[in-house]
């Protein structure tokens, strides 16, 4: 009991360094959830680009063109400074800039079109291609009307009326989306919380539990405990018990944070599966921490380990960047890492339809196998060290 209490006290004393990662985690989860909360996935919505229109003509036609672009995209204001335009296009805060030069309407009336409209966009931009083709189409319609004998006012009105014609788009056909629309309100927001979980739990455990284990692995401390009345088995039981209690505290903290952040969406079956998956990954993180504590001698090395393992697995396995956007070779390599299998389950749970597929259960099983394998490696390391000490 004494060992249990001391170990737990040390763990709790090391908590502030772990809380830093919890703070980062909550901030990321809030920012990402807020950025994605308006995505309506129950019906089709056209992508709207951010378009800046610099109107130097201020005529009926230029206003009509501006209104048309505004009906399809978001009009943003931008200063008339080309250096600022470059910055805005580079950072994609503006997708497309249309400059309507002076004399535009007069030019169109006189059938002289050259250099009246100029566009600026990032090279090979998908978004700008859509805006450009829409604006060209609108101008074709206006010019067709003008050539057919309509006045400028009538042509603008005709082109605006024609622009109202839209094809019917249905969001259907893919089973997964039908499932999504049923389960999504709860799953959509909470999935961001669990997506970033691997990074934070790994760094948190290495920096708190790892530093405590390193202190307990010091030969002098081990020797002192060995000569005391406490048996080796009781010592280990105390440490394992304290680790278990600490894990429960961590789970409670995460549960409270999750309930506070997603109180309306928390109590669903999907959350239960998310929690189960997170619990399995926590076991992986515990075994990784245990191994690192056996390999490291210095406390200061832990932040290095946590950054190397935490960042690399998170970047490679789709925690920080969606797996769809990762290169195929990276995805293939990441299958060798437990985080890949964790993300496998969270990805499926985003489209949760009431049950977990066999693939997800296999992914959970593979995580448990990883945890067991890493723990076995740790025990081998301990055994080898003991053998060396005995030989010495």
């Amino acid at each position, binding site marked *: 009991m004494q060992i249990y209490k001391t170990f737990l006290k040390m763990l709790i004393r090391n908590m502030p360094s772990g809380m830093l990662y919890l703070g980062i985690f909550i901030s990321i989860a809030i920012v990402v959830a807020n950025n994605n909360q308006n995505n309506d996935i129950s019906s089709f919505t056209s992508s709207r680009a951010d378009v800046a229109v610099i109107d130097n003509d201020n005529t009926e036609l230029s206003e009509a063109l501006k209104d048309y672009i505004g009906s399809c995209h978001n009009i943003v204001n931008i200063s008339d400074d080309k250096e600022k335009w470059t910055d805005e296009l580079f950072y994609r805060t503006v997708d497309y800039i249309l400059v309507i030069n002076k004399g535009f309407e007069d030019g169109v009336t006189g059938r002289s079109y050259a250099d009246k409209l100029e566009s600026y966009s990032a090279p*090979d931009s998908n978004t700008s291609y859509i805006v*450009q083709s829409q604006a060209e189409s609108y101008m074709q319609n206006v010019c067709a009307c003008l050539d057919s004998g309509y006045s400028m006012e009538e042509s603008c009105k005709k082109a605006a009326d024609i622009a109202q*014609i839209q094809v019917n788009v249905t969001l259907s056909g893919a089973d997964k989306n039908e499932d999504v629309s049923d389960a999504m309100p709860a799953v959509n927001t909470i999935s961001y919380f669990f997506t970033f979980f691997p990074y934070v739990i790994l760094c948190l455990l290495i920096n708190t539990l790892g530093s405590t284990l390193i202190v307990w692995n010091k030969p002098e401390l081990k020797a002192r405990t060995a000569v005391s009345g406490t048996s080796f088995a009781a010592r280990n039981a105390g440490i394992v018990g304290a680790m278990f209690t600490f894990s429960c505290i961590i789970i409670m903290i995460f549960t409270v944070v999750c309930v506070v952040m997603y109180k309306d969406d928390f109590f669903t079956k999907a959350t239960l599966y998310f929690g189960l998956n997170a619990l399995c990954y926590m076991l992986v993180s515990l075994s990784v921490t245990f191994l690192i504590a056996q390999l490291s001698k210095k406390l200061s090395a832990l932040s290095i380990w946590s950054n190397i393992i935490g960042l690399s697995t998170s970047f*490679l396995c789709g925690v920080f960047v969606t797996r769809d956007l990762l290169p195929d070779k990276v995805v293939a390599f990441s299958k060798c890492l437990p985080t890949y299998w964790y993300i496998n389950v969270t990805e499926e749970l985003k489209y949760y339809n009431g049950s977990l597929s066999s693939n997800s259960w296999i992914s959970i099983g593979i995580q448990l196998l990883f945890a067991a394998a890493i723990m076995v490696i740790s025990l081998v390391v301990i055994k080898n060290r003991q053998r060396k000490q005995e030989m010495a």
Partner: protein
Amino acid sequence: MFGHLYKYRLKSLLRMKEDVFWCLGFPIILCTCFFAAFSGISDKTNNFHSIPVAVVYEKENAIFKATINAVSKSDTQGEEFLNVTETDSASAKALLNDDKVDAIIYVDDDISMAVAASGLNQTAVQSFLNEFEQKSALISDIIKENPDKLVSLIGNIFSSRTYISEQKLTDSPMDEMSVYYFSLIGMAALFGGFLGCSVARQMQPNITPEGMRKSTAPVKRHTMIAAEFLAAYTLQLISMAILLFYMICVLRINLGNEAGYVALTCAAGSLVGIASGIFVGSLPIKEGMQIAIFLVYSLGSSFLSGLMVHPIKIWIEKSMPIINRINPATLIQDSLYSLVIYNTHERFFTNIITLAVISVILCTLSYLMTRRKSYANL
């Protein structure tokens, strides 16, 4: 004496493995992670690729067929606009389910479309279909009123005339992901401050045993400071050179074609990094607090330059531009950015001069904090 001090300080700094890790190892690891994660993003999200669609003809429509054949063969921005698969309804749904196509186009009396999700490709297909329907409606409307205008109308609508001329602001590919690498170089330069911090701390007799020993040595204070500073700066420059070599030669990251200016940016950035570290290390506080202050400063500065969220620089520019003018990581990032984007060096040199001024201010403050200190006992 200077050479001796410089040589041994350099050797001892090389043995400080943690500081060397933060200056060199961590930026290289982070850079590799960025490369693994971001190398496919620009191509997948920004650049134009043919859109796979399935077309289901429930009723023959020769004009639509001709139009769709034209856009699936014509060369728009290097690739055809649509990659069309003509099939029946069931197969089309299967293709959509398997993510083999982005949309199904149903051709009946009206044209309609089914998609599995909202997105840019789906919007592009929708826009194309809208255009077709709008043009059809326009032609039939005008012909009803002015049948004699048919020839000029068709000529107008199907002409290859373009009304909008596309202009270029820069020859750069404008890869927004490169901001992360620029910010990472800024962070790596500032992380040189870990060396500066250790150097300054180990010169303070009231904080470290090394400082006590040094204070009793028969060496002029300014000679010692210069040797220590230069040793840290040398090691930081070597770290930056290795990082740049790794980025340019191994990962093939585009940092522009002006290697000399890139090196100048790293040198100026490293100077600020070391100067910041020396300033923090000179503060009369405990080691743990010094490291915490330096971490908050260096990571905060890197965050504001776009290391974690790349458009943050432009958000700050709109609300509090003064931060971008004085934040060291932003200045380093902006120098590299301006080299890649702009043809002139005006903005680049403004940033470099500002970095030099910041370094001078920090070194002066550090000197004022540490000079003429004497201790009754240690």
